[in-house]
């Protein structure tokens, strides 16, 4: 099945080259300004370590939250028929296209101390999400979970439901079918969705700084630390942290290469 090569089109190749440069140059710019000599100093800085640790903890926690709540939602969207389903799907995927800072404002007005349900909760328990680490996790789940939901829903739709039917006819209960048949069959979709949700959570900035605030060790994740460092003249540590985030993102792409880096 070897096809003859396409005729060479110099204009298209030139424009493609420009396009490639557009993506390569920022990376080169970052690498060129990376203070390699002070790598150890920056990486052992307590503030940098706290930001990285917080980013890791919060993004993983928000991914767990996304799996616990997002898989059931995906199942409902894929399997059940009910009025308003398209609307529900629209609302739950909205954060994918919404500017994250808008998400942050909306979260504040819902779960903030003067928020729709935040106020009665704060009045009853004294607990509030803004300015807390759980607040960061909520903000990250808000922007990350939709990626998991649509990926898992697609997986559920494309799987062969006859396996579930067969299990049921053999006497398996509902939960057993879900646990032993459905989940393993959608495993790859679930993994891909979880990685997407996690990487989105890891990079989350707008909703976090709006809803959870910015304090080192409590709510200042790596993207916030990068922004603050840059704004306060700490360019070296901003560049170093940026580079780390790029490495992590590249790792995510490699992990998902079957989906996005297919060598077709």
């Amino acid at each position, binding site marked *: 099945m070897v096809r003859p090569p396409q005729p060479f089109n110099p204009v298209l190749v030139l424009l493609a080259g420009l396009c490639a440069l557009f993506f390569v140059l920022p990376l080169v710019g970052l690498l060129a300004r990376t203070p390699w000599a002070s790598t150890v100093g920056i990486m052992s800085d307590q503030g940098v370590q706290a930001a990285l640790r917080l980013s890791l903890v919060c993004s993983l926690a928000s991914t767990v939250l996304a799996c616990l709540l997002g898989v059931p939602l995906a199942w409902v969207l894929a399997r059940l028929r009910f009025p308003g389903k398209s609307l529900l799907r629209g609302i739950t995927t909205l954060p994918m296209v919404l500017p994250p800072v808008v998400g942050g404002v909306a979260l504040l007005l819902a779960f*903030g101390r*003067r928020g729709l349900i935040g106020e009665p909760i704060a009045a009853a328990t004294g607990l509030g999400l803004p300015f807390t680490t759980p607040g960061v996790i909520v903000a990250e789940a808000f922007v990350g979970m939709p990626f998991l939901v649509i990926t898992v829903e697609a997986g559920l739709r494309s799987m062969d439901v006859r396996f579930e039917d067969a299990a049921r006819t053999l006497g398996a209960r509902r939960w057993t079918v879900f646990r032993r048949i459905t989940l393993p069959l959608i495993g790859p979709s679930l993994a891909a969705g979880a990685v997407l949700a996690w990487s989105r959570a890891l990079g989350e900035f707008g909703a976090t700084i709006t809803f959870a605030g910015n*304090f080192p060790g409590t709510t200042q994740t790596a993207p916030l630390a990068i922004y*603050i460092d840059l704004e306060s003249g700490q360019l070296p540590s901003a560049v170093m942290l940026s580079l780390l985030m790029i490495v992590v993102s590249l790792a995510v792409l490699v992990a998902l290469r079957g989906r996005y880096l297919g060598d077709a």
Partner: protein
Amino acid sequence: MATRRLSVLLSVVTGSLLVACGGVASSPSSSSSPGLSGNLTVLAAASLTGAFTRIADQLHAMNPDLDVKFSFAGSPTLVTQIQQGAPGDVFASADVRNMQTVVTGGFNSGMPKVFVHNKLEIAVGAGTPKHITTVSDLANSSIKVDECAPAVPCGSYATTVFGKANVKVTPVSQEQDVKSVLSKVSLGEADAGIVYVTDVKSAGSGVEGVQIPDDLNVTADYPIVELKSTQNRSAARAFLDYVLGSRGQAVLKSFGFITVG
């Protein structure tokens, strides 16, 4: 005085150089302001938002062809923008330290002048639900205190106040400019915020101020300078002159600033 004499000397020197080089004889004079035109971009500390907007309106009324644009942000944010080559004609900082960074980097044209002073105040939600009356009250861990990040002037001033009052305050967040602190207080997310007197005055009915006594307070110095990158030297000079002149000072005073004698 010494700096003024130096700048006069410099302008004489550059003027004679221009003449000696046979340069354009009609170098724009900055002493009077009729016929100002074009764009003027002023990078100014967030706490100047209200006063500078009013001043720009007055300047525009006098010079309909002059378009004054602002970038209001925390002072270190503006310094970073200047360092990265953002276009701007005038820079006004809320502290001397950030202005010094600009001068050290050689981004200024002429020496900075302090044009106004400010003081800090504790902003609390209207009705002071937490009964905050002194700086020491802020040490209570049940009170959510918001403040500026340490690099932002209002943040470093707040640290000075806490030091003088000998209290340890753990803020819930560190904002990039003073207006963000104010909005967290008016939203009710923070119980108290360390802001300028002028911010409380501009905030409206949702926010009240708790005075910080003079012995614990700081005097914030606001320097202003013309930037080397300016494309509109005559307008930049006119803006500086206006801010330092009686009419500009009157506007600043009406917003609660302490004018320079």
